[in-house]
């Protein structure tokens, strides 16, 4: 979807994103005249676009900490599933490239391995131990 400032015949630019209970507010502005408007989604629209696994607002600052589409969905997911099992920054860093949809399932499995092994947190040693235990390359 693209937006056009009709008087200026200029494409509008995404300026800011906000999220609120499944709704996303995307503020666009005209680079020429400065006119601004906001597109407000309902939760179903948010969900449909979010199901593509994309983030909206790559160029725009987010008013909240969460990314507008997958971030909102992730926020709800996290609120129910995360019991605060600690990860060290180095172990977290290894998860940085794991996609948002996959991350919760991966984390749950690793945390179970850590708990079952009597570890108090997930660090790089635990990750390497899991790799060795399950015969991974």
């Amino acid at each position, binding site marked *: *979807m*693209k*937006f*056009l400032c*009709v008087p200026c*015949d200029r*494409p509008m*630019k*995404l*300026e800011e994103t906000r999220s609120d*209970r*499944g709704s996303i507010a*995307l503020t*666009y502005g005209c680079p020429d005249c400065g006119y601004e408007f906001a597109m407000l989604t309902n*939760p*179903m629209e*948010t*969900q*449909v*676009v*979010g*199901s*593509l*696994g*994309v*983030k*909206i*607002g*790559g*160029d*725009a600052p987010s008013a909240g900490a969460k990314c507008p589409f997958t971030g*909102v*969905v*992730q926020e*709800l*997911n996290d609120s129910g599933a995360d019991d605060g099992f600690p990860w060290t920054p180095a172990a977290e860093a*290894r*998860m*940085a*490239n*794991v*996609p*948002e*949809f*996959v991350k*919760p*399932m*991966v984390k*749950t*499995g*690793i945390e*179970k*391995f850590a708990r079952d092994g009597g570890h108090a947190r997930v660090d790089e040693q635990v*990750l390497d131990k*899991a*790799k060795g235990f*399950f*015969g*991974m*390359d």
Partner: protein
Amino acid sequence: MKSYYDIVGDGGSKIVEQVVEQRERIARSLSAVRHRVAVGSGKGGVGKSTLTSEIARALRRRGLGVAILDADLNGPSQARLAGVAAAPLVPGPDGGLCMSRSADGIGVVSVGSLVPESQAVEFDSVVGGDSHIWRATREFAFLGQLLGAVRWGELDFLLIDLPPGAERTYQYAEFLGPDTAFVLVSTPSELARGIVSRSVAALRGTPNRLLGYVENMCGYYCAGCDEVRPLFPESEAPDFGVACFGRVPFDPELARSGGTAAPGTRDLLDGVAARLASAAEQESP
């Protein structure tokens, strides 16, 4: 006034760019995989998953590098079949996800090792209900992310175990791209053959190669009398217009977790794998 096509980009949302990036990430991840073969049917309950697992074993016996992606998110079985149901995906130092391997060295990526069998496979949502509207999109996006995130490494074959549904077979052809070849699984039942015919017709409308089919459950192997007994009424071989890679009996031993095929069944599976490998090589672009 400018039209949609006059405007370059989308003002900052970058939706299209992200979708393209997802596809590029998948292509990079699979760049060292020689053959991608999706095993489908259209019909449920014909033994796709078991056959996929056994074909992988047979390919492995030929000394080939093999992995399985279990694309049946809602009825995942490959983790259990491979004995890796308790093995999570683990991020390596490079951030790529390391896959678990069966005892015979087959890589396996399955939701069955990520979600306990006591739990339904659920996806989080900001809407209450109406999952019929967005769930399929979410599942394909999830699979795409999984394909792009796993460190598949060098493989001769990546077998993709598809869920049932003739129309789903078509959707997976589009999703996996034209470089993915297909093998279909049928049984001697008229019901299964009719639905497999629909899948054949659906795949004819795609650029994907349909390598052949396997007829499963052609009798059952009786361990007591060491012979194959009839399971379905005698009928003529179907004419799907593609090569038959073999006719394999139902082997009750394979229904057990970690079960091993009887020698006769294993010979038939070796023949299926040999014909599949040959067809994949010959028709490779």
